[in-house]
C-alpha cells in the first residue's frame, strides 16, 4: 500500500515536471558584442508562402551580404500554433516572424520569446525609430520580446465610379456622412434583397469589427485603472449606437442575407468590393496588392475611416496591428546572437524594410523607411502610410489572453446588432467583467 502511494506520488510529480515542458526563460542579459565571426547557420520561421516567401528570401540574402558569417535558412508556412509547439518541444527556430500581434502577451509573459531589452540597450537600438503604435504592440508590461516587422493599417476603400455615379466627389469624413452616402448608394433587387451595398455596417463582415473602427471614435479598451473600459468610456456606446442605427436603416435581415451570400470570399478575387458589389468598405493596406493583382481595372480610392461627428479632429487616424519578429527561448549561444542580428536587421534596417514593404505591400515600421525615397507607394497605398503616422492611430492592447478581449466584445456586438443586446451600458459592463476575469486568469490563475 505504501509503495503504491509512493508510486502515485512519484508519477504525479513526474507528470507535473514533464507534462508541461517549458521551463522559464525570457529574462536574459545579452553577452558582450561578439568579437569573432564564427560561421553559424540559423533558422527563420514565418507564415509567408509562395511569392511572399520569396520576398523574405531576398531580404535574407541582403542580410547575408552584410553578415557573411551568418547563413539563414528561411522556412515559410509556419503559423503561431507551430511556433508554440516547437518551443514546447525544444526545437523552435532561432528567429520567428509571427503574423499575430495578439500572441505577443503570451510570448512575453511566459518567456517563450526572450526579452530583447538587454540586446537593444547593448547595441543602442533606438526604439523611437518605430512609430508609437508599433512600439505598443511589441511589448507587454515593460518586456519587449519582439520588434515590429511591417504593419497592417486599416482605412476606408471606396469605388470612385460608384461615388461619382451617386453624385459624390469625395469620400465621407464623418460617420453620419458615411451612413447617408451608403444608404443612397445601396440598390436592391426586385425581391427587395440588396443588389449593391453602399457600405455593410454589420460587425463580423470582412474587416468590419469593433477594433478596426474604434480609433475613429477615440474609444479606449483599457482605463486608467488597468481594467476594461468598454462601459466607462462613453465612446464605445456612441459608436455602437451609430452602428445599430445604420444597420436598422438598411435592415438587419437584408444585410444578413447579403453578407451570408459572400461565404469566404474576402481573400479571393470574388471579394465584394473588388467585384463592384460594395461601394465602400473598411480594409487593410494589403487590399491594394490584391486589387492590383486580381482586379486592376477597378477604379478606387482610399481614405481614413470616417470619424465620430462630435470629434472631427480624429479624422486621419486609424487602426494598426502588425507582424512581430523575435527570438524563441530555445535559441542559445552563437545562434541566439546571430538571430538577434537578423531580427535587428529585418526590423530596423531601412533597406530591408523598404524591400519588404515594396514587395509585400505592407506598411514599413521604421520612421527611416517611411521617409525613404526608395519606398514606392501608389496613391492608394500612400494613404495608409499617412494613417499609420497619425498621432491618433491606435492598436488593441496586448494581453496574455490573446484576443479574448476582442472576441468577447465581438460576441456581444453580434447580439447587439441583431437587437438582442439589451441595454447597451449593462451589456458593455458585463463584457468588461468577462474581459477582466479572462485577464486575471492569465495573470496567474482563475479569479
Amino acid at each position, binding site marked *: 500500500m505504501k509503495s503504491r502511494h509512493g508510486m502515485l506520488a512519484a508519477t*504525479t510529480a513526474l*507528470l*507535473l515536471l514533464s*507534462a*508541461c515542458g*517549458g*521551463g*522559464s526563460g525570457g529574462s536574459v542579459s545579452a553577452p558582450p558584442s561578439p568579437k569573432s565571426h564564427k560561421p553559424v547557420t540559423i533558422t527563420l520561421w514565418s507564415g509567408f508562402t509562395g511569392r511572399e516567401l520569396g520576398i523574405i528570401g531576398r531580404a535574407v540574402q541582403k542580410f547575408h551580404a552584410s553578415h557573411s558569417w551568418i547563413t539563414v535558412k528561411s522556412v515559410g508556412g509556419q*503559423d*503561431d*500554433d507551430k511556433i*508554440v509547439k516547437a*518551443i*514546447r518541444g525544444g526545437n523552435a527556430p532561432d528567429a520567428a516572424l509571427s503574423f*499575430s500581434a495578439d500572441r505577443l502577451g*503570451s*510570448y512575453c509573459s*511566459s*518567456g*517563450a520569446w526572450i526579452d530583447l531589452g538587454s540586446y537593444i540597450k547593448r547595441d543602442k537600438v533606438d526604439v523611437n525609430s518605430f512609430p508609437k503604435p508599433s512600439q505598443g504592440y511589441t511589448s507587454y508590461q515593460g518586456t519587449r520580446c519582439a520588434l515590429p516587422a511591417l504593419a497592417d493599417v486599416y482605412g476606408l476603400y471606396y469605388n470612385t465610379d460608384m461615388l461619382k455615379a451617386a453624385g459624390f466627389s469625395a469620400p465621407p469624413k464623418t460617420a453620419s456622412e458615411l451612413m447617408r452616402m451608403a444608404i443612397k448608394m445601396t440598390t436592391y433587387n426586385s*425581391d427587395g*434583397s440588396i443588389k449593391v451595398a453602399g457600405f455593410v455596417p454589420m460587425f*463580423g*463582415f*470582412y474587416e468590419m*469589427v469593433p477594433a478596426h473602427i474604434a480609433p475613429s471614435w477615440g474609444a479606449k479598451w483599457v482605463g486608467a485603472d488597468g481594467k476594461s473600459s468598454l462601459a466607462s468610456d462613453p465612446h464605445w456606446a456612441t459608436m455602437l449606437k451609430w452602428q445599430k442605427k445604420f444597420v436598422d436603416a438598411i435592415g438587419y*435581415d437584408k444585410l*444578413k*442575407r*447579403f*453578407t*451570408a*451570400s*459572400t*461565404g*469566404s470570399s474576402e*481573400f479571393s478575387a470574388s471579394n465584394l468590393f473588388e467585384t463592384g458589389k460594395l461601394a465602400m468598405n473598411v480594409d487593410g493596406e494589403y487590399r491594394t496588392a490584391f486589387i492590383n493583382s486580381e482586379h486592376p481595372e477597378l477604379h478606387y480610392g482610399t481614405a481614413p475611416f470616417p470619424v465620430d461627428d462630435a470629434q472631427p479632429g480624429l479624422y486621419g487616424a486609424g487602426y494598426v496591428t502588425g507582424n512581430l519578429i523575435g527570438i524563441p527561448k530555445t535559441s542559445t549561444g552563437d545562434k541566439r546572437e546571430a538571430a538577434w542580428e537578423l531580427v535587428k536587421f529585418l526590423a530596423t534596417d531601412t533597406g530591408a524594410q523598404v524591400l519588404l514593404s515594396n514587395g509585400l505591400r505592407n506598411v514599413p515600421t521604421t520612421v527611416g523607411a517611411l521617409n525613404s525615397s526608395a519606398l514606392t507607394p501608389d496613391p492608394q497605398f500612400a494613404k495608409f502610410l499617412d494613417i499609420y503616422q497619425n498621432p491618433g492611430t491606435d492598436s488593441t492592447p496586448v494581453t*496574455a*489572453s*490573446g*484576443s*479574448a478581449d*476582442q*472576441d468577447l466584445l*465581438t*460576441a456581444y456586438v*453580434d447580439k447587439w446588432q*441583431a437587437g*438582442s443586446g439589451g441595454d447597451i451600458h449593462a451589456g458593455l459592463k*458585463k463584457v468588461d*467583467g*468577462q474581459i477582466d*476575469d*479572462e485577464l486575471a*486568469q*492569465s495573470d*496567474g*490563475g*482563475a*479569479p
Partner: protein
Amino acid sequence: MTVATTAPPDAAQQAAAQQAARRRSARRAARRRRLTVLAFMSPWVVGFGVFFAYPLVTTAVLSFTHYDLLSSPKFIGLANYRFMARDPNFWPSVRNSAWMILIAVPVTVAFAFCVALTVSKAKRGATALRTVFYLPTLAPPVAATLGFVFLLNPRTGPINQVLALLHLPQPLWFDDPHLAKPSLTLLGMWGVGAIMIIFLAALLDVPVHLYEAAALDGANAWQRLVHVTLPTISPVILFAVITGVIDGLQYFTQGYVAGTVAGGGDAGAGSGSSLGYPEGSTLFYPVWLYQQGFQYFHMGYASAMAVVLFVISLVVTAALLRSARHWVHTASGSW
C-alpha cells in the same frame, strides 16, 4: 537402543528439496505464463498508458494549475473549478451541448431507426438504399459541414432557392441563432449511415417466428413494432443512445466549422472572431474548452473543463446503463 521412527535425515531433505524444486518450477511456469500474457497484451498496455491513462492523469493534474502552454504550470488549487460558476460562457456552452444531447441525439437515433426499418422492409432496391444512406458517412466532417453551409446559404443556397420558387419563407439557417442547432441536427441526420447499418443488422436478426406468433395473436403492425421489434433490438438502441450521447458531449467539429464559416471566417483554427456564431448559439462546451486552452492559453482551466466533461460522460453513461435494466432485453431476460 534407539529406534528410528522417522525417515532418515537425507531422505527427508531429499523430499523437501524435491518439493522446493517443484515449487520453483511451478513459479517459473507461472511467471512464464504471466510474461507471455503480458507480452501479448503489451501493445494494448502501452497504447492505453500512453494515449489514455497518461493524458487523463495529466489533465487531472493540470486542472489544479495555471498553465499557459509555454511556461511551467503553477498550482492554484481549486480556483479553475470555482471559476466555472462565474465564467459567462460556461453555462451557455453547457446549454448548447445539452440541447444537442436532449434533442439532436434522440432525433438522429429515431431517424436512423426509421431509415433502417424502411430499408429492411424494402422489397426491391434495398442494396441501393443501404448504399445511398451509408454514403454520407464517408464524407469527412469538415467537408460535410461546409457542404451544408453552402446548401443552406440564405441567399445563394439551393434549398432556399427552391423555397423561393415555391413562395415559401426562406430561413437564415446557420445565420439564425434559433435555427443554427436544428441545421446542425439536419446535418447529423444526413450522416446517420453507420448507426443505420447497425440498426438494419439488428432488425434483420429479429426472429421471424416472433412476428408470426404475434400475428397469430392478432397483433397489428404497430403492436408488432412496439412489442416485438423494439424489445428485441433494445440492446442496439442502448448502444446507439450511449454512443450518441458521448458524441453529443464531444460535439466540436461541425459546430466550430459551421459557426466559423457562416460567420465569415475561413474555418481555420485560431480565430475567435465568430466564436459561437450566430449569437453564441454554436458555442458548444468543447468549442469553449478549445478556445480557452488553445486561443486564450488557459490550459489549466481547459483541463478542469475536460475533467468535468469526463465526469459527466461517466455519470450519464452509468445512468443510461442503470436505466437499461428497465427497458433493455437480452436473450437471457432483462439487462
